[in-house]
């Protein structure tokens, strides 16, 4: 797609979308939002990039293998937090065992699992989009 207005606007707006995604991810414990929303917004940024600049250039810096590894990493981060709580002597996902202080362990555990959810959701949505766009078919609608 060779539209100059589209390319310029996309270059202008992409950093803001990515920064908004990170803001929602990090600030999710005090404001609306959280891991799921941050992951979806980040995936939308990648979809916008691959619609405007073509999926081949998007695949150069985020290949399929990296997305698969990210999805598995998110699940393992979430489950690993639960297992770490079990090792420290509590139940599965009982964050109070991470720190002795009453709420510090909870906040730490919640921020870690939100990162896990965000990674998995981002990687899964991007994988679904790339699986559709690289499938073949008549090319003239997009790209």
């Amino acid at each position: 797609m060779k539209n100059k207005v589209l390319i310029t606007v996309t270059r202008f707006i992409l950093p803001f979308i990515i920064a908004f995604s990170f803001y929602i991810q990090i600030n999710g414990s005090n404001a609306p939002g959280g891991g799921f929303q941050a992951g979806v917004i980040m995936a939308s940024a990648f979809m916008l990039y691959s619609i405007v600049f073509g999926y081949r250039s998007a695949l150069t810096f985020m290949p399929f293998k990296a997305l698969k590894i990210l999805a598995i990493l998110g699940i393992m981060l979430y489950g690993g937090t639960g297992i770490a709580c079990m090792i420290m002597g509590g139940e599965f996902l009982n964050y109070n065992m991470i720190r002795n202080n009453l709420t510090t362990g909870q906040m730490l555990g919640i921020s870690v699992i939100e990162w896990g959810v965000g990674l998995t959701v981002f990687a899964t949505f991007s994988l679904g989009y790339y699986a559709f766009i690289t499938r073949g078919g008549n090319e003239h609608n997009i790209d």
Partner: protein
Amino acid sequence: MIERYLDIAVLVLVFSIAVMIVRSKNLFTVVIMGSIFSIFCALIYLIMGAPDVALTEAAVGACATTCILLASLKHFKEDTSLSKWRVISLIVFITLFVVLSYFTISIHPYGSVDAITNKGVVEYYKQTSGNEIGLLSLVNAILASYRGFDTFGETVVIFAAGLCIILILGTKNKINNEK
């Protein structure tokens, strides 16, 4: 009073967009209209005081789903007439309309104290989550700590859905052919 007029205005907009979706012949128009429909749904959630749901609806319904549907749209041929399904879709629509209307009558009014969603464990969460969890956002305290196991299950479900897409569609059809 002005909130009531805002509600009515947005609902009329959503209804007219839904009618336009049903009546349009072009699939591309349907996808873009669905995106606009999601934006107005997010506005309704925001008016009802649910910013988390509004954010999710705007991100998933308006951005991600529209992009995925646009990507899947190129596998269709230009002429996709759905006329042979017209009778079946009419039957499904009327059945759904009757069933949903029947259950809408028995729903409690919005924000009612007697509603089943405002009873039970909600009061406990409101009173103790500040001391036990320490987060300012009650939604995230419930989602990630009290109901952490459910959220783990949801994440695994999303991962399994992505896995199914990869297994069905494959990820290296065109890339390998072009090399």
